[in-house]
């Protein structure tokens, strides 16, 4: 070793900076994440608690609430209703959302902006206000108490999301591909099916996803439109909670949480993050 050779450290060779602000930020993040998970975790805990009211720590563990849940036939019917309504609302949102977005994005015509505002207006109306309005309307048309009024009401709320997201998707679709298809002999219908649709795949998935979740979890809009026949699951749970707070609801919630986890995992695995980024940031207005 030659003592007179000065050793210059290579760039990037400095000791890592201990940044206090960064530390604080990450601690806050950690706390917030705990805060986000807390109620969900404890619902799961109480679902398996042997006590019939919410006490921590649980005196023991049991699955009796699950047993009691399986006897609750009205809840299952409510779940089925919610599912049907959500599926119909989602399908209708996708179809109508796609056609409306195509018109709004691809064509220039008088009143286009007005129409766009018209379609997006339901987004700013408070759901409970809309619920009241729909009730009055449904009674007026003697359609109160059926699944159809629920489907329509949900559709009115989910459609703006679909239009917003699909419009963003269509804007970023490559039009020259559609021209190429037309040039090669594809009629507009064939072009849409073979070229446009594959390009807006992500937009369709996100729209469908949002529409389904919004409809499935919808309370305020359904609240005034339901009777015993067309009861939806979230409203049924809401009423149950008002009468009693036994952990049957917790047991039910376990399944709903499990469903949410599955959906989240599927979404993360299948969707291309770059497409998702593009669609969400553009559709987030």
């Amino acid at each position, binding site marked *: 070793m030659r003592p007179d050779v000065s050793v210059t450290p290579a760039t990037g060779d400095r000791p890592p900076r201990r940044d206090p602000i960064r530390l604080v930020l990450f601690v806050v993040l950690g706390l917030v994440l705990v805060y986000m998970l807390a109620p969900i975790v404890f619902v799961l805990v109480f679902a398996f608690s042997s006590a019939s009211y919410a006490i921590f720590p649980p005196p023991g563990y049991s699955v009796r609430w699950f047993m009691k849940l399986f006897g609750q036939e009205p809840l299952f019917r409510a779940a089925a209703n919610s599912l049907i309504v959500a599926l119909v609302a989602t399908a209708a949102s996708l179809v109508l959302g796609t056609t409306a977005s195509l018109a709004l994005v691809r064509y220039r015509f008088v009143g286009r902006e007005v129409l766009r505002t018209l379609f997006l207006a339901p987004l700013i109306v408070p759901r409970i206000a809309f619920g009241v309005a729909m009730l*009055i309307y449904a009674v007026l048309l003697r359609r109160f108490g059926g699944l159809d009024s629920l489907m329509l009401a949900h559709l009115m709320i989910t459609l703006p999301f679909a*239009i917003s997201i699909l419009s963003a998707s269509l804007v970023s679709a490559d039009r020259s591909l559609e021209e190429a298809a037309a040039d090669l002999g594809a009629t507009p219908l064939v072009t849409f099916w073979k070229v446009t649709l594959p390009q807006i795949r992500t937009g369709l998935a996100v729209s469908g996803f949002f529409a389904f979740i919004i409809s499935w979890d919808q309370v305020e809009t359904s609240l005034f439109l339901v009777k015993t026949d067309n009861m939806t699951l979230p409203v049924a749970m809401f009423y149950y909670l008002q009468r009693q707070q036994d952990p049957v609801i917790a047991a039910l919630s376990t399944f709903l949480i499990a469903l949410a986890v599955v959906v989240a995992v599927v979404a993360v695995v299948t969707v291309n993050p770059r497409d998702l980024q593009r669609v969400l940031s553009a559709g987030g207005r």
Partner: protein
Amino acid sequence: MAVLARASGELRQRRGGWRATARRYAHVPLLAPSVLLSLAVFWVCMAVLLVMSVYPFLAAGTPRLTWAAWQRFLVDPFYHGIVGTTLYMAVVVTAFSLALGYPTAYAISKIQRPGWALAAYLILFAPILVSVVVRTYGWLLLLGNTGVVNWALRTVGLVREPVPLIFNFTGIIIAMVHILLPFMVFPILSVVGQLTPDLKEAAADLGANRWQTFRRVTLPLTLPGVISGAQIVFTLTISAFVTPFLMGGGKVQILSGLIYRDMEAVNLGFASAVALILLVLAAVILAASNALARRAYKRAEVERV
């Protein structure tokens, strides 16, 4: 560059065949079902709501034109109080969401490893998939006198009697912030994500310390996201029903609860009026904050250049 058409120049307009006409009106069949549905369902029912608030044609007895439903709000201080509480609740929820949401968004944007960032995103946004009823129920369990929080506080020795955290305003705030936090974080995240490091470096180069850089560079540039988030959270709070109702236990009076009670009492005319007041409130807040947002956007754009 192409020239502007001369007014006198002959440009004989072609009378295109049926194809040209079809092309010109192609958008009509695409729009028709959505427009018709939107008009027939949404807009008509909103109109019906308006009518109902002054002419309760569905109520018992003979309907007549009356402003009673609206007057209630002008005259009775009880109802002023309800509006006040609603707005106050929204302000508090928005403030807390912002206080928590901004650092959260900032922190997430600084996560290096993509796996951890994905986990953070999931934990923050996945709860939206779970129904608001379930999550509110979770808070009822957590915050009750025999719940986790009180158990922890008593075990540590901070309190001797259980602290009432549900069926009051505090409970509402805690639960609402939980529900709405993702809506605050999302727009801020988008904006923070667009911040390029060179802007902060330029500030540092010009002599700004971290606080000054934050105040003069980061904050103004992220302001559009903040306003957007605040807008969403505020309007969602005043419109919310389930969480404040369950967490409030009937002790906290807000507009959505008033609607519910009016509906239960089948006071449809009154309920309609309150619903419209809620709508107007939401619209006004949106308009005002949009104007604010536009100014913030303009400044952010200019400074970026």
